[in-house]
């Protein structure tokens, strides 16, 4: 059975003057957990503001939970819960009243909002700390409070912007588990923008990868990983000869010392590898299907777009001028 669509866009574009922030974005995000990936300047924030109905798209159209993003922004924001990346809490208020007020801003009755604030804070693990002032909270507790503010009205879609950013291992684990629980037990949808590939992989089934305002990849993580299926072998003796033999037979080989990865393009690949090894007299001491991580997938996609980056961290965490990943020539950038 096909899952319900929660976000859909058609040729969505947004220009700030001559600067293109989103270009012909065609997205189809279904119920469940979806990761929104992309380096700084990819258009994630613009995309979020557009689907929240806070800014008008230059062209194109879209719907969120069935509401038109151009005309029904308030209705969309009433049905979603947004957890911002940056501090969005008054440090002089205690957590319970901050969460209650966020519920009142949605139109909840003050008494009901207070009841829900208790339940939400309990859910995010702050039941015992709810009467403490927010300025005494750790980063993890502040993140949890923001999540409580987002889920107070039990929204159908939770947009979490970098939910695990700046958290220590324990807090990060709890945040990720909470989001997973919200999806699995609560049957809610989560759109999670994050730079941490591991977190996205744990929470989400699908990803949307934006780059320079364009859609670089979209789909189920497992399906996208299948694009990059490889057989990994560990060779002892005659590695270079084996590599040459495999390339001669038309295999795509990537080699790092004695470890080689061969693109899994045919069902007889393992037999062919063993045949090559026997011909050149090389020992294959280990052979297994290589499971690509989301990080690998990201790098492959970026490589396909023409960028030479070592890791997602390399791309995400450095300022734009230091990344040297300008768009390639055919995409209108300055890179050759």
């Amino acid at each position: 059975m096909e899952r319900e669509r929660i976000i859909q866009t058609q040729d969505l574009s947004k220009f700030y003057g001559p600067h293109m922030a989103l270009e012909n974005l065609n997205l189809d995000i279904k119920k469940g957990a979806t990761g929104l990936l992309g380096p700084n300047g990819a258009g994630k924030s613009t995309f979020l503001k557009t689907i929240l109905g806070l800014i008008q798209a230059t062209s194109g159209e879209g719907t969120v939970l069935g509401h038109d993003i151009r005309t029904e922004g308030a209705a969309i924001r009433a049905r979603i819960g947004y957890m911002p990346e940056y501090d969005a809490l008054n440090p002089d208020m205690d957590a319970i009243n901050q969460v209650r007020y966020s519920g009142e801003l949605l139109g909840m009755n003050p008494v009901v909002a207070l009841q829900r604030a208790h339940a939400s804070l309990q859910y995010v693990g702050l039941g015992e700390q709810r009467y403490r002032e927010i300025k005494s909270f750790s980063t993890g507790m502040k993140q949890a409070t923001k999540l409580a503010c987002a889920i107070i009205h039990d929204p159908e879609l939770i947009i979490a912007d970098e939910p695990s950013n700046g958290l220590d291992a324990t807090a990060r684990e709890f945040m990720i588990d909470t989001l997973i629980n919200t999806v699995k037990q609560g049957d809610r949808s989560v759109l999670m923008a994050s730079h941490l590939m591991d977190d996205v992989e744990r929470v989400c089934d699908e990803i949307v990868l934006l780059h320079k305002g364009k859609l670089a990849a979209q789909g189920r993580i497992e399906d996208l990983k299948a694009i990059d299926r490889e057989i990994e072998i560990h060779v002892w003796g005659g590695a270079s000869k084996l590599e040459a033999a495999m390339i001669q037979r038309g295999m795509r080989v990537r080699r790092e010392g004695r470890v080689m990865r061969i693109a899994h393009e045919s069902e007889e690949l393992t037999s062919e590898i063993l045949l090559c090894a026997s011909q050149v007299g090389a020992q294959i001491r280990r052979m297994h299907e290589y499971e690509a991580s989301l990080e690998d997938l990201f790098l492959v996609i970026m490589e396909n777009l023409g960028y030479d980056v070592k890791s997602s961290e390399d791309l995400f965490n450095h300022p734009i001028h230091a990344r040297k990943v300008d768009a390639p020539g055919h995409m209108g950038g300055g890179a050759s």
Partner: protein
Amino acid sequence: MSEDEENLLQPQPQPIVIESQPQPLPPPQPQPIAIEPQPQPQPQPLPPPTPQQVQQVQQVATEDIQMATAETPVTGQARMDTAWGSSEGDEDISEMASIGQTDSGEIFKQNYEPWRGELNPRWMRNWAILRHHILGIFKKGHRPWGVPTRIFLVLVFFASLSDAALTLLSSLIGDAEFHSFWGVNRDNLYGHVLGFFPRNVMYYPIVAALLVGGVISEDRLHGTSALYFSRPINRFDYVGMKYASVAFIQAIIIIFTLFLYYLTEIMAFGRGWAWIVDTFPIFLGALMGGVLLIITYTSIGLALSSVSKGKFFPGIGLLAIILGTKTLAIIVKNLFDREILYLLSPYDCLAHVGQTLVKTQPTYDQYSWTWSLASLIVMNAIALYVLSSRVSSMEVTRE
């Protein structure tokens, strides 16, 4: 046996311990089950230690401590003994402790609780913003106004009631001359709202500065604007309710006390309809002057608040504009006998228009009151333009 194993079997240097040597535990003696109560031995007081015993203990302790030198190997044995006992570890555990069964429980169980309620419409959201800011003055759990702000508001409220209190006093003592000083008349109604000292030096501008200081700027500072704009609240409602809440608190201090002053005169002196009909237009003039004052101070203050991150710049900026322009205008008038610079002073424009509304003796005679009104309109328009453009640029994703 290897050399390493032989080394392990060598006697290790013993740590320095003051306690006695470990003794093997005595075997458990079978105890008869005593049903009858056994006679309890009476506790005997211990004999005091003899001087010899004390001396022996002190000597042993001193010698042991002196043995601990820098060369003494640190083995951790003493700590192990302290934690785990000093025997060889062959005790029969069943004699020392019993293992009980305890129920294992879950301290925290994460349950997602759905909510099936309905959200109220726009007016309820706006009411929430208004309520949050106004109730914050009086009780915890709403907007956290600073304690100095709250104290000052209370002080100014009671200070603003001074003319009402003195009117009441004059009715009690029955002194007509005293009443002519403090009772309701044209000059006193004007003075309640637009008198320069102390009301427009010490009271109202400072009240406005304290209120507008952080109302918008702290949303920028703390990022709480995201909390508003990720909800179904538009910019107009956001700024409108902030404006209304600040204006409402000022209105309690300025307009409500003016009303109480007028009411006190009526009640204390038993004024009839004729007097009310005579004085009500004057009262309305003063009330309109107060409304203009609140609007002007709030507009300028919120505009300053919207361009900053923090509450000090808007507060100080508002005071500087109100009192600074007034001071500059006085200096220019005294030096050059030209009043035109009063048009740049919000207070003077308000006072000029107020004098016309209440019809008191005018103190600005070099230009028409319509210039002051036009100047006020321009000031408010500029302030509201700055306010709206800055609030429009407030972000939900990042500031």
